């Protein structure tokens, strides 16, 4: 069973529909005892980093998520992925969960040639696999995924990068260390490939794939 943490910031609906279609049993909960029964947790998220951390802190989820991540798989989606990192510059520097090393920064909107580009990074972008051997990418070939975000992860730890996408900078698209994973795009909105990535995470959590 997969636990989806309901902390007041996610678009839970689309993640739930995707799991339903994959026939993966899940619960949506904010109760730690219930969530401890799950084999893996999904941390969704739409909105601003600071607001999300306020919600996580208010309900005592920070310590719970850190403890959970020590023993079981976790997948952060979009803002949920950004929350896994050390800190974000969104609305003033805010500390994150520090499960992965890096800082979340805003797209500048102009590249090295001073050409301006659009922010948010919105639409389908190509995934470049950096670690095709990752359990999340089993059975997949490089494809497009659906992104909507104005902030992205900057990390000095290149070993975290499972897949990237090019949007004037190299955007970490799938990250992971041990069994803590994140996707900057929305796998639940990324067609069959996105669903396959979600399914791989669920299989990993349920012991179908070994890390």
């Amino acid at each position, binding site marked *: 069973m997969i636990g989806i943490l309901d902390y007041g910031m996610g678009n839970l609906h*689309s993640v739930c529909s995707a799991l339903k279609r994959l026939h993966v049993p899940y619960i949506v909960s904010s109760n730690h005892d219930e969530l401890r029964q799950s084999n893996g947790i999904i941390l969704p998220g739409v909105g601003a980093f600071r607001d999300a951390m306020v919600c996580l802190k208010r309900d005592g989820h920070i310590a719970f998520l850190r403890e959970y991540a020590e023993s079981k798989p976790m997948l952060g989606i979009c803002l949920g992925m950004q929350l896994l990192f050390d800190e974000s510059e969104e609305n003033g520097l805010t500390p994150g969960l520090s499960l992965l090393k890096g800082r979340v920064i805003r797209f500048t909107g102009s590249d090295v040639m001073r050409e301006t580009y659009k922010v948010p990074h919105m639409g389908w972008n190509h995934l470049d696999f950096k670690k095709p051997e990752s359990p999340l990418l089993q059975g997949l070939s490089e494809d497009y995924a*659906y992104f909507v975000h104005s902030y992205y992860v900057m990390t000095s730890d290149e070993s975290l990068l499972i897949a990237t996408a*090019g949007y004037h900078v190299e955007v970490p698209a799938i990250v992971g260390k041990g069994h803590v994973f994140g996707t900057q795009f929305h796998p639940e909105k990324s*067609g069959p490939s996105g669903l396959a990535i979600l399914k791989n995470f669920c299989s990993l959590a349920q012991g179908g794939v070994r890390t």
Partner: protein
Amino acid sequence: MLAKRIIPCLDVKDGRVVKGIQFEALQEAGDPVELAKFYNREGADELVFLDISASSEGRETMVDVVRRVAEQLSIPFTVGGGIKTLDDIKRMLRAGADKVSLNSSAVLNPRLIEEGAAYFGSQCIVVAIDAKYHPATESYHVYTHGGKQLTELDAIEWAQKAVTCGAGEILLTSMDKDGEKSGFHRELTRAVNDAVSVPVIASGGAGKAKDFYDVFTDAHADAALAASIFHFKETSISHVKDYLKAKGVVVR
């Protein structure tokens, strides 16, 4: 690199897709869920559902349509038509829509854009603009109420204001080109695209694959929307995408 998006638009009235759709393969041609699945398989990058119901019962039915589509679809979709209040936006997004499209209501009350963006984020607020060229003023005027009501607004200035209020995307329809099948309005699309910092979806005038190529390369549209040419199988999404790929345009 970001792919150019191809977006079919479906008109829904009282829970059924209308305006005639010619797909023999589909048992129930008017079912929005079946059509959504069909276009998803065909390679649509996103879908737009426009609610043209006139009654409140029809609008209620739309919430149910959104819920059923959301259960089946794993690509983003937008719902427009008749969304007038923050509560309307909430209902559609909570039913599973990824974005809402605001048209007349945004013109009458730009605060609705601000409130929607503040509450749910700019990424789910699309502002739809219907524009028509007026030779007398040599500018594009905004029309509301399904193209029936002329306003004083200049389309380019309104697009800028909508983005300042928090619109995350502009869905730009040229009334001059709509239904003509002679290609998208490149000049208008380019002008709006140059004026705003968010993605622009070109609409109105699609007739053949080359029209998509032209609006992507010449007017730099981020996405292009079409209805009848897909519904009547004059071309298909996969054909348009093959054409674009062969010409070096990045598509999914």
